[in-house]
């Protein structure tokens, strides 16, 4: 959502959607802050207080911050609007709020900020609900009202090292994209700046892998610098984002801030700042070694890679295991399967600061992290679940998908049973003809693009019937059709990709066939996702 335009704010203001309302509130609030200097409508400031708590805090702080802004900022309202525009990107989650705050912080009185805004922060703030601008050292502490979710903390841990840079570093617009680079794309360190910036909001989907990739591949120098900077602010952990000493961290956050890192950054500031930062830094250093075993072992070894970090960690405890488990899982994702369990017999877990040290709760946390890791892997596997958040919905989708796959197996076995047995099953000939690569040939090829466009069911259904009917076979085809009818009425329809296909679950043979074929095309698309030939190539082959 790159709305670098003032008019868009006006539109946002007018929207009745509560989310947009919030965003528009925020944007107008910013404008209001800037309206002291620029001529913006400022009617929404008092309504800002009605925003939910998490945003309300931000707003309150933002108002105070706005007043403390240097005038130079407001000399360039366009640039600010660019930053604000992204705040309108509503996600309605805490993470988005946290992101926005992080991003806003480094914006500071200097002309380079505008460049930074233009270059690095507009796309990165796209997820943020609030664009908090703060002057140096005036960030209130009311922003630390973020849920200390386990995942949140973990993500924060991963991304906190992004932000350990210097504030002056943030001001360099060209350093920002570099920090952004490793985390925007999954692992591409040297990608061009513009591309990364544009990709940041889109690539913000999966925080952990990108973070891990970034950690593994990128900028050891920046890691060192960030850890060094992080060391300077050891005692800021407990405070929220707005801690002045953390400002440099936040500046770094926003500088490095890809949209993915936002929730983690704020969360680390709000919930588990030092530990998560320490963990992430440790992880980053370890990622250079890129060894899961070392990570787990190193978690227990105090002098392990993150020697600098041990000093920076004022807190006594860190959840080393979680840090190790996560990079282990992510590295696993990188290479082969997610194997979060290291090869040791047992896992050394340390309690995070402020958390229960009960062994049960620690084990519970480890278990929860494992489960979330597996769920993420499953999310990649099941098509159309990239946007789904939440365990229950995800489980529903998984169950639906497995059921649809099993139904497809049944359907295909029935089809094979009725297929003309006159043909000889020449195994070698079958393999030699590369039928596997053809994967259904033209008939299914016709399905997938149609299904993707939610084309009316006539065309696919016709093809389905042709496929099912196997014309020219006479009575076997009739028997097949009867059996198909009996089977399909029993089945409740094919797998419906939640994002694409509208609900066409009708107890009709045509529709069922269509759905079956659509479900059949789903794994086809899944296969495509796995890197197989795209449909175009398939057509060329045929």
């Amino acid at each position, binding site marked *: 959502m790159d709305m670098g335009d003032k008019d868009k704010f006006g539109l946002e203001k007018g929207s009745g959607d509560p989310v947009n309302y919030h965003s528009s509130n925020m944007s107008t609030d910013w404008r209001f802050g800037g309206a002291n200097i620029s001529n913006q409508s400022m009617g929404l400031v008092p309504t800002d207080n009605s925003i939910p708590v998490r945003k309300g805090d931000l707003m309150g702080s933002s108002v105070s911050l706005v007043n403390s802004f240097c005038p130079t900022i407001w000399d360039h309202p366009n640039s600010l609007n660019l930053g604000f525009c992204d705040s309108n990107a509503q996600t309605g989650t805490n993470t988005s709020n946290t992101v926005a705050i992080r991003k806003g912080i480094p914006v500071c009185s200097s002309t380079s900020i505008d460049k930074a805004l233009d270059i690095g922060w507009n796309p990165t703030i796209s997820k943020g609900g609030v664009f908090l601008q703060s002057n140096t050292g005036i960030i209130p502490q009311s922003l630390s009202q973020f849920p200390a979710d386990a995942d949140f903390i973990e993500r924060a841990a991963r991304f906190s090292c992004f932000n350990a840079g210097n504030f002056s570093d943030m001001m360099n617009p060209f350093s920002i994209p570099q920090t952004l680079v490793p985390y925007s794309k999954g692992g591409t360190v040297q990608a061009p700046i513009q591309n990364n910036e544009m990709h940041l909001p889109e690539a913000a989907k999966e925080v952990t892998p990108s973070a891990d990739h970034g950690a593994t591949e990128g900028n050891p120098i920046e890691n060192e610098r960030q850890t060094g900077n992080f060391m300077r602010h050891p005692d800021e952990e407990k405070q929220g984002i707005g801690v002045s000493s953390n400002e440099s961290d936040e500046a770094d956050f926003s500088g490095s801030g890809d949209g993915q890192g936002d929730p983690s950054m704020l969360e680390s500031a709000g919930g588990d700042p030092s530990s998560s930062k320490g963990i992430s830094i440790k992880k980053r250093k370890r990622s250079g070694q890129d060894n899961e075993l070392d990570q787990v072992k190193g978690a227990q070894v105090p002098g392990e890679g993150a020697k600098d970090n041990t000093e920076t960690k004022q807190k006594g405890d860190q959840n080393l295991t979680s840090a190790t488990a996560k990079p282990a899982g992510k590295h696993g994702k990188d290479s082969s399967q997610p194997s979060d369990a290291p090869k040791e017999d047992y896992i050394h877990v340390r309690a995070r600061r402020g958390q229960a040290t009960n062994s049960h709760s620690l084990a519970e946390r480890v278990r929860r992290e494992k489960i979330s890791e597996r769920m993420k892997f499953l999310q990649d596997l099941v098509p159309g679940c990239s946007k789904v958040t939440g365990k229950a919905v995800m489980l529903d989708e998984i169950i639906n998908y497995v059921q649809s796959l099993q139904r*497809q197996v049944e359907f295909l076995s029935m089809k094979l049973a009725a297929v003309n047995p006159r043909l000889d099953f020449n195994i070698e000939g079958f393999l030699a003809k*590369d039928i596997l690569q053809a994967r259904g040939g033209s008939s299914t090829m016709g399905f997938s693009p149609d299904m993707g466009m939610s084309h009316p069911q006539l065309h696919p259904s016709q093809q389905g019937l042709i496929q099912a009917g196997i014309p020219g076979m006479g009575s076997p085809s009739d028997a097949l059709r009867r059996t198909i009818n009996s089977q399909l009425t029993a089945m409740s329809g094919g797998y419906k990709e939640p994002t694409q296909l509208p609900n066409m679950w009708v107890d009709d043979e045509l529709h069922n066939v269509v759905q079956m074929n659509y479900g059949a095309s789903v794994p086809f698309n899944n296969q495509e996702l796995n890197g197989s030939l795209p449909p175009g190539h398939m057509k060329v082959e045929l």
Partner: protein
Amino acid sequence: MVVCLSIYPKKSLQLYLASMNSKSLSSNPCRKTSFTRRFLRALAEIRREEPNSSSHVDISRRCQRIKVAAYASMASAVGSKRAWSRAMICKVRNRAICRASMRQKIKISKWKKAVANKHRRDVNQEDELRRLVPGGKSMDFCKLLEETAHYIKSLTTQVQVMRSIADYYST
């Protein structure tokens, strides 16, 4: 990366499949060819055994056998590395062993359980998943998710191969 349709030796086919499935498990192409071979063999055997009748009953029975053959060949192609494949192999073997007598009893008991489930109405998602994935009844949730992921991968491969076979023989 497009391979033209010509008679290729099996090795190049495997290489092609390997390149095609670059992002999936490294052993996927081998698994795919292995599954294909087993499945085709089973199909040929079924065709040999059963008469080529087009009656409704025969077709459904053959369909059932083909389905079992598909699952069995997929499970054996995966091997015994996975819990679900082991469970499925055991199930198929038990099914073959106590085919005639036990089957009716098993069916009735399962039907009764299904009815009871409907009345209970608290079958949460986890139980549902355990029911779907073979061998999922005696796993912790974490392992269940892992097995589900692998099972989904294998199922997609299976569906692809079966569909390609069906299309090949129907055209």
